[in-house]
């Protein structure tokens, strides 16, 4: 079951105040990660798993998918290195490298929401979102995890979009079906044929369908039925 969904585009308004004791209030949420944090906050709050300002840790696993989110920071860091003289390399700051790692988004989300049960990041371009969804459903079906925050961060140039789903295995019989691998972009239409945000397209489409149809819905993803209920009420 998907108790709640969060979607964020561009720069949000999330501040450190929402995370007392979990994030240094003098530091902004890193802009490269901010949409994912906003989407996660919306989903977690909607699911009743987390309250802004509570500072409490949220039980559950965290699975993130990224398509190109780490590429720009990586190119930036490579350029810094190229331009630094041999003796100045040691003066290159750590944040460039940190956000070159695709796992940095999950690291920030884990820190903000106190998600400690399991953390992984699926990378693989357009397929990453679908593969991360499969990974999450697999771990729920095998009861490796009780519940999961799935967050997909997709980028296109300077623009970013993030989708987050809270997943819990209420319908474990359905989740136990082989979800297969959802073909890249097969559901990706809401942003037009160009598929600007490939990794997130699948989840965006699924989220949008729920928005278009009233009440709780089941949708088909790659041969498995997924129950979606954005209102957070039990089905």
């Amino acid at each position, binding site marked *: 079951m998907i108790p709640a969904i969060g979607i964020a585009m561009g720069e949000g308004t999330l501040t450190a105040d929402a995370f007392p004791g979990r994030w240094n209030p003098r530091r902004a949420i890193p802009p490269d990660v901010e949409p994912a944090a906003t989407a996660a906050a919306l989903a977690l709050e909607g699911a009743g798993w987390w309250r802004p300002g509570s500072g409490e840790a949220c039980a559950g696993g965290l699975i993130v998918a990224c398509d190109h989110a780490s*590429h720009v920071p990586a190119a930036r860091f490579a350029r810094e290195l190229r331009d630094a003289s041999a003796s100045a390399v040691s003066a290159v700051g750590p944040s460039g490298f940190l956000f070159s790692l695709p796992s940095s988004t999950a690291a920030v989300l884990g820190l903000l929401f106190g998600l*400690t049960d399991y953390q992984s990041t699926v990378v693989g371009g357009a397929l990453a979102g679908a593969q991360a969804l499969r990974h999450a459903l697999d771990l729920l079906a095998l009861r490796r995890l009780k519940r999961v925050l799935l967050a997909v961060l997709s980028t296109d140039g300077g623009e970013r979009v993030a989708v987050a789903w809270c997943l819990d295995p209420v319908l474990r019989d359905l989740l136990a079906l082989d979800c297969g691998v959802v073909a890249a972009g097969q559901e990706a239409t809401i942003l037009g044929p160009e598929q600007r945000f490939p990794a997130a397209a699948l989840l965006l489409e699924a989220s949008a369908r729920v928005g278009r149809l009233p009440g709780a819905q089941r949708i088909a993803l790659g041969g498995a039925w997924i129950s979606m209920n954005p209102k957070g009420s039990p089905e």
Partner: protein
Amino acid sequence: MPSKRNLLGGLAAPLCVTGIGLASAAGRGTQALSRALEERTSFLAPAKGIRRGGSPGAMGGRLDESIVRSWRFLEPGDDRAVALAALAMEEALERAALPPGRLGLSVGTALGPIGKLEEAVEAGAAGAAGAVAGGGVVDSPRVPVPYSFEAYAGRLARTCAVLSPRSALLEPTCFSVTCVSGLCAIEQAAADLAFRRADAVLTGGVDALTRFMHAGFGSLGALSPSGCLRPFDVEHDGIVIGEAAAFAVLEPPQAASHREARVLGCVVSQRLVSDAMHLTSPDPEGRGMARAIGGALSDACIAPEEIGCITVTAAGSEVYDRMESRAVLTKLGPRAAARVPVTTWEPAVGHVLAATGALGVVHAAMVLSEGLVRPVFGVERVDPDCQLRYVLGGPVPLDSPCVLALTVGFGGQNGATVVTSLEMAMDLLGRSGEPVR
């Protein structure tokens, strides 16, 4: 995580390791590492490939370039991380000698083919790299930067197809979770076997040591200023990075038994826990690692007294070495912790980034096969806050066919994996506390 017992792989448990492969600074193959550990040879040295612009005397563990380039199916433009992975995959698949069937591929890597991006930016080449490198030009991943995890995973899948031509390959999955990347890949491999999508899965971790990687860890202040990797020693002062690819072929016991495959070990249980305390540092008290150890032992139904050996990520930094010690003491208790020998491969080849978790499993299989726990070298005086039974003299016999492999990852990632002999794994299956089906 659920409190009930949960064996890795569900109905496919225990996961049999029928092939292992490794490429590291010690050379090609697991035998090269085995020899290095036996002879106490360190392959950490000033690394030519990362010197330019790197810190003076940059130390690292790099596989000899001639070996990297010797792989017979290398294509023009292949990144170093492709060649490393290919060498290890080839060894693992050769040893497994799989029959025709469906083969999964699940890989962990922190930065994948980062060398391609570095080269392009260094050269200031036209197109992607030039655009990205050029001042004032919008950084856009839509420009075809020659750096793509998707393409990397695809290249590894093509490699796999060449190496195992009788297999029908599943689409590869790629994880990037710093040093525990390979353990997340094992989680997916276990699921692919449990849901019978695959008959066998090739899974592992890989990262190449490049200037980018070295400077990156340098920028975090994680590297040893002395350039000496001295895990658990009172003088430990940081990590020395290496590169490696470590792979294992996993199969359900029925399949391995049916074809009378040699089982090198069984991955019985695994827990991954994140500290979620700091972006780069672990919980110094080791609470996350203790949780991981407790969960893995409980899932496997193994008592601390039954552990024959612990292999650890020996980062050589004060905080990590001490954190692991605290976690083990907490979960095993002082009596068992004083008895179980602790070893590592790191002084031979360095801290191998995303290959670390997978190498933990490969090393565990090596220890089980050899029946010996090799000593940790490079230690003169043990840090009084590192209170485990580190093997420092000669090798000690493995007195129980059960290895607990501990992996720590950058940013507070903790992994505990239980690897046993097939006989012990089958015995564990029958113990009370049924695995969750």
